[in-house]
């Protein structure tokens, strides 16, 4: 009887240990930067969001990203309003999330490495698998992750009126940079 109780207590403690071990292996970036660019002959559109948050779980190579559409800053104020109101509809779809994996990531290896990230981007009500190359650098337990990729506007059901079709690129270039610190 006593042995059983002890076993239970030990198991319980072990489970707790497991949970805390999980959070020890997490690194977080609270002010990651994501920019996007649309280049056409009519006009260039550029916006930056520097309040993007992301967590990497170094034990499982899992990466998640979360950003608010309203946090994107445009050079032209009116564009920002139209972006939110008429295109990405941020009142209905306030955020973009990404859940993926850094394939064959060696978290313990110091210095830069180039890896593929593969995962699901959830944006404007559409979930789509995307894959892109990224540079990751391990600076003594802090990580810097940067890279770029292209997304197609039509993949995410964003409607562009035909009158404005020449102003907005079909493929939007996305650039990102995250600096991770251990998560407490």
């Amino acid at each position, binding site marked *: *009887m006593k042995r*059983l*109780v002890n*076993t*239970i207590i030990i*198991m*319980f403690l072990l*489970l*707790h240990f*497991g*949970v805390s071990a*999980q*959070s020890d292996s*997490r690194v*977080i970036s*609270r002010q990651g*930067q994501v*920019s996007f660019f649309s280049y056409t002959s009519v006009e260039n559109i*550029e*916006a*930056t969001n*520097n*309040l993007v*948050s*992301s*967590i990497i*779980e170094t034990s*499982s190579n*899992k990466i*998640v*990203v*979360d950003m*608010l559409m*309203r*946090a994107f*800053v*445009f*050079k*032209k*104020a*009116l564009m920002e*309003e*139209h972006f*939110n*109101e*008429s*295109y990405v*509809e941020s*009142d*209905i779809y306030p955020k973009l*999330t990404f*859940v993926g994996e850094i394939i064959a990531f060696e978290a313990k290896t110091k210095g830069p490495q180039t890896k593929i990230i593969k995962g699901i981007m959830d944006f404007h009500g559409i979930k789509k698998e995307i894959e892109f190359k990224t540079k990751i650098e391990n600076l003594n337990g802090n990580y810097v992750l940067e890279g770029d990729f292209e997304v197609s506007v039509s993949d995410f059901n964003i*409607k562009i*009126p035909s*009158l*404005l079709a020449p*102003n907005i690129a079909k493929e939007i270039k996305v650039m990102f940079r995250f600096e991770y610190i251990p998560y407490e």
Partner: protein
Amino acid sequence: MNKIKFLILTIHIFGLSQLAVAQDDLLQLLEDERPKSLLYTMATFKTNRIAIGHSIETRKKGILQLHLGTRYWNIPLEGRRTSFLVDRVSVRFGAEYAFTDLFTGELGINSFDGVINSSLKYRVLRQQDNGKVPLGITLVQSTSLFTRNFSGVQLPGSFSERLLFTQQAIFARKFNRNLSLQIAPTYIHSNSQQLNFEEKDFFVLGLGGRYRIGNHTELVSEYHFVAGREEGVQGFNPYSFGLNWEIGDTTMQFFLTNAKSFDEATTILYTPNNFNFNDGGLHLGVNVIYVLHLKKRQLPK
């Protein structure tokens, strides 16, 4: 013994589920980590004019807005018309500059009545998305200057008598993504007595609303009720109904109205005809609003 087995199982399940949560809800964790930012409600109306009157909106800092307003109508005629398309056209040129995100100034001139007007607009309170501030308030001060006689209005002799002052407090709420309503108590002081008015001070209630019908279009309507006047010889309450269409930096406004003028005081007090389909009563309005970003923002590096 069974009791203990049950206990083990419970603890196991409890512990495992905790593990599962820890693994899968990284996204939830990020959401909890995100600082709560203050978001002001965007685009209660698409532009800073509903159709004939001010909306609660102002432009953002550094924007110069050009306003080309046109009205078309027929005058009552016996016999055949000889004019091309319509008998009368009125045009307004206006320019509005946003000194800050909250404060704008405007200058404009109308061709039909020759009224020159300037206005200052200040946002006192902005609606917030989190619901803490449920509505927005904007103050408008507008001064109009008569420069000639038109439809019953006689040009007074002295300069000061030609002035009219309009003060508006606009209260508006965006109820949901489609519906916004505004109410604008207005006080107008006219330095001259026109159209057999005995008083020089008028209290007006302005009502306006929009309903979004597409991502780039909204239906709008507005009405100004002047308290204590008999509609008729002393003018009619102005009404408008129309469509606003946003095309990038340009906004087009198409509407029907009975107002001939463009400035606040003349539109509200001295609209000489009612809104109806009788000859001369209905005016077609087409406004083109173009936005120029004189100062562009710096993107965070």
